[in-house]
């Protein structure tokens, strides 16, 4: 078991009323799964993803990741945990505009205290694997959306995470680019046994996954 959510609630207070963002979520994810989270706008997909990614907190419930109880951990340990095991892919790529492709890939490694030579090897390896060696000195603005997302995925993978969280990874891409990215996810999942949880609006993309979770108004249905 990679992670388990038990009776997770998250709410905000607005105008004296409690509005639930997540309501009684129970979910367990095994290593090697490829899960698609679906639902209409505002149903809590991204919130769920952020909670799993430990970027956001929740108000009630238990969250176990590997052998750790996330809900009891202090902020610092939590960030160490996600730093080590989780990679993020965003809809709008979130590459740093001022860094080249190479530097964008290197960036997460800087925060993990790898040595210079190790970093070089790891980035080089990733550039090879994604066939973007020729683009390593370009800035994000010089790449197409698909290429940017490719770099985004490569960056998420470079720290060798167990879990990749992707929030509408193809939302800004055309269909051909989308297929490439989804194909990549599928291969990663099958060949490298990386667990993937993606949020998507598209039935087609959801079909790449092994399991679909549907959310409505913060509830799993």
């Amino acid at each position: 078991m990679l992670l388990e959510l038990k009776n997770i609630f998250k709410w905000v207070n607005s105008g004296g009323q409690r509005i639930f963002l997540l309501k009684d979520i129970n979910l367990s994810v095994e290593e090697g799964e490829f899960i698609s989270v679906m639902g209409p706008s505002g149903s809590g997909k991204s919130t769920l993803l952020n909670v799993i990614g430990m970027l956001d907190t929740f108000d009630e419930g238990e969250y176990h990741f590997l052998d750790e109880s996330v809900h009891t951990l202090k902020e610092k340990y939590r960030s160490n945990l996600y730093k080590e095991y989780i990679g993020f892919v965003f809809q709008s790529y979130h590459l740093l505009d001022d860094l080249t492709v190479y530097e964008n890939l290197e960036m997460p490694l800087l925060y993990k205290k790898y040595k210079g030579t190790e970093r070089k090897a790891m980035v080089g390896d990733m550039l090879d694997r994604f066939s973007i060696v020729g683009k390593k000195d370009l800035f994000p603005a010089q790449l197409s959306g698909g290429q940017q997302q490719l770099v985004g995925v490569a960056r998420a993978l470079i720290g060798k995470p167990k879990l990749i969280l992707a929030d509408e990874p193809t939302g800004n891409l055309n269909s051909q680019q989308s297929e490439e990215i989804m194909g990549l996810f599928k291969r990663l999942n099958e060949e490298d046994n990386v667990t993937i949880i993606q949020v998507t609006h598209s039935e087609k993309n959801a079909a790449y996954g092994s399991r679909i979770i549907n959310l409505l108004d913060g509830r799993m249905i």
Partner: protein
Amino acid sequence: MLKNYLKVALRNILKHRLFSVINILGLSVSMATCLLIILLVYSQKTMDGFHEKRDRIVRVLSLEDSRSFASTPLPLGEMLSENYPHLVEDAVQIKSSFVGGDIIYGENRIPLAGRYADDRFFAVFDFNLIAGDIETVLKAPFSIVLTKKSAEKLFGETNPIGKSVKLNDIGLNTMGIDLIPTQNKETLLGDFVVTGVTDNTSPSHIQFDFLVSMSTLPSLVKQGKSDITFDDWENYFDAYLYLLLKERVSEKDLQPILNDVSSTKYSGLEEVNIAFAVEKLSQINLSRFHNNDISLRMPVEVIYVLSFLGFIVLFSACFNYVNLSFARSLTRSKEIGVRKTMGAARYQVFVQFILESILVGLLSLAVAVGLLQVLSRMFLGLWMNQFLLLDFRFDMVLFLVFILFSIIVGLLAGVLPASFLSSFSPIKTLRNAKGILLEKGKGIHLRKGLVVLQFCASLLFITTTLLIFSQLNYLMEKEYGFDQNHIINLKLQGVDYGTLAGELSKNPSIQSISASSFVPGTGGYSGDVLIKNRFSEGETDLTSSYIAVDQSFIPNLKIELKAGTNFPSQMPGYNEEYVILNEAAAKLLGHNMTPEEVVGETILIGEDHTPVKVIGITANFIYDLLTEAEPTDPLVIRYLPHEFAYLNIRYAPTASTKSIISYAEQKWKGMDKVHSLKYHLYEDELKGTNAIFSDIIYILGFISFLTITISTLGLLGIAAFTAESKRKEISIRKVHGAQTKNITYLLSKGFLPLFIIAVLVTVPLSYFVNALWLEEFAYKVNFGPWIFIVGVGIMFITGFGTIVSQTLSVANDNNLLKRLKEE
């Protein structure tokens, strides 16, 4: 890691040029100002650094009441070195007044100024003695040590050692300034043997053209050429005392002994009570003001004021950095969010932003060092600095200090933005595509506060500068009570005034000539004299300043006689019989009498109460420096030919000044072949006495210019980013029919309350601060509201000009609709 941070920082600096230029420009100009102050302090601190035993050398100070004197009683030195050998290893005394005049060797006659120093001088100090024996050069009476420069002037290539020179004292001083009272008499001190040559080019607070052995003085006393006494404990003006302390003895160990000396010597005396203190050699050039100092230097108070001004400007520039960084948090928030999701801890983000601000600091330093070259030259050109020992030298240590300083500035500017930016939570920054909203959160109050502070500082400086400027103008145009036009004042320098006046009066363009002991209104001074009414038995003596003049002086300067007459053309040669008083002196003496009644009275003057007859009363005229003068300053006008030091030449308004001067020059050469003619145009000289004001105006004007520039730059940045961040709002409003003026109003109105707060705070503050110093002047300008009106006007125009220019560019942007679609 570091490399990556620096790379990102550099790219950021290059990418956001407006932001970077504003920051680097503001920081560099303000840093240049601070570097100048560092340079100033450093040069003062390293002065006298060439003495090997500098850490153990101290100077003894005399304290009386609240005043401190750099000089001490003459017997103190010997007393300390004889009685306390376990503390004092060595002591050297230098006589406080100059021995100055001409040194004559054969046909060569050179004007030089030197000092009496005792034989320990070269043992304690490490002035490089090129020739002569350290222990004995200043031992024997009538020994003289020349500086290398003086020796070359006097002897050329010849070896000066063992040669005999004549020394003629006419009261020259090495500082070459006229403020020190000079006497118009010569004393031939006798023949001196050159025993040594020293190279005194290393910067030191002890300045001299030559040194004469202190042991010469007793012989001079015997010959009646000096009236110095070596056992007078009550006179603390005579000598500077430097002690070389034993190893591991600190100045604190000496203090109880000095207290003992003070209590044994002075406890029995009622009138004199002197305490002693010590100051380290390294502190001498950076200490507070002492009376009777060995050389003029910048008192540390001035450095404090300059540093204060420098730091205000620097803080203002740092405010800009903080302000703009906060404003830009909008554009940086995504980066912070991404870095944090990729595993960056808060401290890592913090370090990154701090490094960025340090980099900006270092880049500013590079610009500032360039600016410093210009600025230091401008500073050295200030009027006051011609009197000061300033020696700006650059070395490695100074360079490191500069770098350290710029890093500190970087930290100072960066710490607030860095801690603010690094606190962003990744989820919030990534969720809104727009990032953290500008107008929300704690940043906004801080930024508004900083803008207000900048407004305040600018307004304070503008109003102060305006006021000083108008005060200067007032003083420049002030009537002195005499006619200074078409008068040339000529320094007698020992030449007989009767002969010279006789020669000069042959020129038909010269209308009249008079003589005086000092030139009224230029800071000269003859001294005070006690005055007393004849029948006021038991009453205490009154004190008045006096001036010695001849019969022509009052008509020559067109001073108004209120009652009585001028001195008669035939004056008795010896005994003083008549005096003329000014109205203030008459009032001081007369109590209830009118000035007219005082005429004909006999009063007593001087310590020995000489009876003299008052023959005339003049109107009050300003004889002191205008900045010091009071309308009620009493003055006794006396006829004392031996004190005449200046000739006042009135020439026809139609005559050219140049021709009069060249005529005087020609006559002068006939009478004094050694000294050059020293003269001033009276009108210019009086204006020159206000030169210190010009300095203050230059300095404050420069600082106000900087604060205004920096705050304008800051406003520019803030306005640009406000406009930028409200593009969407502007677009929506324009779509719904808003016009340019509405938009401009909308964007500018936020600054108006800040501006009003600044005005409300600063106007009373400025009024209070400025009224405080203005009170010190008896003659002062009317401190009216116009200064504030003009000041606020300048602020308003520059400030809102900046904001409007920025907002107009956004408001006039016709591509707004397109932008809206992109949103």
